[in-house]
């Protein structure tokens, strides 16, 4: 059942959903409910309007303008859900709504489960119990619009792939469950080579998809963070790559204190270039915040341009930035902005790494919700292939299927039994 029912002490998640009709439409209303609703508004709009008063604001996220939107703010508990509630009235295009959702997710909010707003309202005593008649209609309406919304999103993005994986996983599960529940009967298909081979293949495909940038990235650009110690030449390199002086450059270590972002295209691939504060221990409270943000960026980025690293790694290019002034570290890419050397090579390297993250023809990128589920599936399957106890293999496959069921719906046990009896001749 829904997480919101677990209202015992712990702060509930802050949730959001499209509460208006199907897109595209003139206006799309995104409703947010929960303790972090205010922070989210504050972050996107820079200010929170008076309670109950509409205000027109420009929404920004990661330095980018999302939309001009009308905002409404209601402080709990005197709201429809009993929690803090915000409403964002956006222009009703799919891209705008997706971008807004992505922004809210990156702030730690999550999509509401079907009917979850209403459930929260119930739990917080916000529904008139005497007026219970007609409630289910209301619920059905909310659930239905969200379900339709979910289906629409799914159709665009992924479901076929997920369903196919789920079905294959179900077959692998059937093979191993048949071997367990019908021990002693011949040819029940629990052949460990078949089972482990099947999981390995799945695992490779899932890993390939997880190696792709998330779907949001295709809209926002592949995130490239330039990191390194103070005064290593990060901002100079940043300005060179974007082709203008967006970042302040000085010889004073610790000049860049905030995170600066700029979208660029190289060879037609969208990048979001991020300049960060130099990583060092500092007593300056403002610089400290900048350093903290830089570390977050390093976590978040798809590609790091690291001005301190000694060698390249999977998602990191090691660069010696001031090649005109100091000797380049061996094994790193020597770049000199002033002598205009190495920049082209760096751009080529970025394109090459980004290409591996962009879906090939026929592939789809998965957004965060699905990536989370898939990452959990990958973890369970990795454990499964690494264990010899067939029961634990089976257990991890079960967990993986349940993870997929959570985003796809479906009844794991019954489906598995169907696969099992459909495929193996069992029963004496």
């Amino acid at each position: 059942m829904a997480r919101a029912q677990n209202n015992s002490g712990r702060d509930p998640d802050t949730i959001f959903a499209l509460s208006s009709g199907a897109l595209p439409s003139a206006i799309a209303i995104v409703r947010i409910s929960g303790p972090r609703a205010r922070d989210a508004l504050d972050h996107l709009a820079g200010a929170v309007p008076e309670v109950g008063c509409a205000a027109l604001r420009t929404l920004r996220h990661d330095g980018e303008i999302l939309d001009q939107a009308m905002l409404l703010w209601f402080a709990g508990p005197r709201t429809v859900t009993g929690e803090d509630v915000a409403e964002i009235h956006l222009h009703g295009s799919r891209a705008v709504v997706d971008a807004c959702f992505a922004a809210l997710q990156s702030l730690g909010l999550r999509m509401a489960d079907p009917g979850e707003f209403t459930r929260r309202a119930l739990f917080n005593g916000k529904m008139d119990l005497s007026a219970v008649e007609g409630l289910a209609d209301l619920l059905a309406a909310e659930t239905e619009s969200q379900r339709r919304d979910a289906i629409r999103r799914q159709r665009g993005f992924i479901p076929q792939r997920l369903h196919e994986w789920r079905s294959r996983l179900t077959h692998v599960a059937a093979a191993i469950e048949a071997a367990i529940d019908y021990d002693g009967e011949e040819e029940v298909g629990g052949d460990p080579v078949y089972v482990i081979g099947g999981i390995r293949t799945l695992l490779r495909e899932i890993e390939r998809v997880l190696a792709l940038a998330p779907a949001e990235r295709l809209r926002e650009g592949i995130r490239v963070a330039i990191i390194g110690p103070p005064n290593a030449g990060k901002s100079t390199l940043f300005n060179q790559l974007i082709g203008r002086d967006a970042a302040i450059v000085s010889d004073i270590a610790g000049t860049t204190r905030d995170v600066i972002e700029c979208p660029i295209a190289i060879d037609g691939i969208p990048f979001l270039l991020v300049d960060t504060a130099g990583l060092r221990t500092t007593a300056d409270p403002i610089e400290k915040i900048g350093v903290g943000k830089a570390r977050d960026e390093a976590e978040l980025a798809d590609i790091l341009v690291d001005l301190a690293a000694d060698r390249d790694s999977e998602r990191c290019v090691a660069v010696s930035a001031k090649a005109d002034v100091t000797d380049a570290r061996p094994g790193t890419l020597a770049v000199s902005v002033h002598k205009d050397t190495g920049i082209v090579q760096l751009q080529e390297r970025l394109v090459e790494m980004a290409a591996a993250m962009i879906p090939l023809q026929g592939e789809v990128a998965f957004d965060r919700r699905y990536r989370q589920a898939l990452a959990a599936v990958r973890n369970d399957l990795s454990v499964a292939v690494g264990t010899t106890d067939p029961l634990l293999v089976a257990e991890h496959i079960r967990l993986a299927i349940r993870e997929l069921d959570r985003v796809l719906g479906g009844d794991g046990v019954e489906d598995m039994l169907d696969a099992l009896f459909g495929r193996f001749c069992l029963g004496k």
Partner: protein
Amino acid sequence: MKFDVVVVGGGHAGCEAAAVAARLGASVALIAINAAAVGSMSCNPAIGGVGKGHLVREIDVFDGLIAAAADDAAIHYRMLNASKGAAVRGPRVQADRNLFRQSIQRRMKDFPTLKIVEGEVIELDFNGGKLSGVHLASGDVIAAKAVILATGTFLGGRLFRGKERFDGGRIGESGAHRLSQQLRSLSLPIRRLKTGTPPRLDGRTIDWSRAARQASDTEPWHMSADAPARRNTQLFCGITRTLPTTHEIIRAGFGDSPLFSGDIEGRGPRYCPSIEDKIRRFADRDSHQIFLEPETLNGCLIYPNGISTSLSADTQQAFIHSIPALEKAEIVVPGYAVEYDHIDPRILSRELGVRDVEGLFMAGQINGTTGYEEAAAQGLVAGLSAACRALDRPAPIFDRTSSYIGVLVDDLTLQGVTEPYRMLTSRAEHRLHLRADNAEARLRVTAVASGAISDAKAVAMERRALQRKRAAALAGNEDAGSEDIPRAIREEIETDRHYAPYVQRQRSEVARLRSDRTRLPVGFDFMSVGGLSSEMIERLSLARPDSVEQASRINGITPAALTALLVAARAVA
């Protein structure tokens, strides 16, 4: 005659129910058409297996009959899944059917308050709308505070063999049609299911030299925790297989098959109970395995496991003779299919009582299950519940997180059945915890509190509990003086440790679910819940969940329906 509990039927469900009610001190009458046949194994000679062995061990914790009788009668032991994880190891024995029946009957004689009555129950007796006992065909009325129906396949039973048709529950025994009609008139939802049995062979006419041999396990384990050392001679099982010619003969006999002619309306299972089903559904397979299982110590009667059939007697004879080792085998009794009535078990409470008929309980195949072990487990639950009701004490509730009995009862009463329900470990989401070897550790406290166990059993379990405690304290410490603790217990504790991280995670999930539990009062009217669709009302009314958490597990219940339910539940709370 007046009793606390009347049990109708002397199969595995009936015997277990009567015995546990008697152990609780209730006065019990077990009514059977043929008293000499009480405790018979009506079908295959095996007891236990994967999932089923788990049930047997759980029943044993409650001092039940089936485990001990299986040990008394065992002529072949096999630990299934011995090479797989400990949680799914399934103990199984082949039992001599005479020794088994004798053991059950001997054990039942030990209960001073248990009386076996020979007779045929034709109707339930109602007094002023309340269930008050049963009518026998002899005209006698037996009064009872509670009645347990454990009639197996005898309710509306109809046998099929080729074009032959007989009424009855088993070959040579008549069925219970009036009772079936009465249940229908009480508007209990009655459906049809089918099952089948293979021809029985004369072991002396089998050429054993042409069959592979499977010897009994030499590891000295038992079905019951308190069993004495093995006494019976151990026999081997044979293995042979069908040939392409066998399949040709069977295909040629499809024309006479009641399965394919549509004569049998009851739904069969997804798994393959009959050889004709196997051959039709898996046409690409040119051979199927057959286990030749001895039914008796003298080896005269053989159960060929894997070729259950309702083809005509002639076809059976012909295809048997096409099988290696069986070329000259004589059929003692031909196989047949049986179609029978069962009730939709969703009308039952977690105590296996019919909610709308106070004092009426049901156990075994009448609830849509298949298998001795499933029947015995329900007998235990129904017997405990009925006796507790008569004696006015609370009955234990079995939970799916701590026992297979709980999984069985929960699945039956919440989801109903669409095919004869067989226990599988894959049905148990907590199976890493629900092992055959830790049944006692899981259920001892509940069993002792239920009052269903003898003092001797309680003492033995207490002793083993202390050994477990010591073994756990010493675990991981090889030479710490645990030699006097039985090896089985040391292994059990080792396995506990092996699965502990998984079990721990499942426990915390269970605890979270429990904290969310909003109870639905008994007799809650789902029609009164505002705005539920008629489909939701039907599903909920049939399953009658006792909490919102349980409702959430019913197939097809929507979040919207759950929410409406939750509101209504809070309103009445």
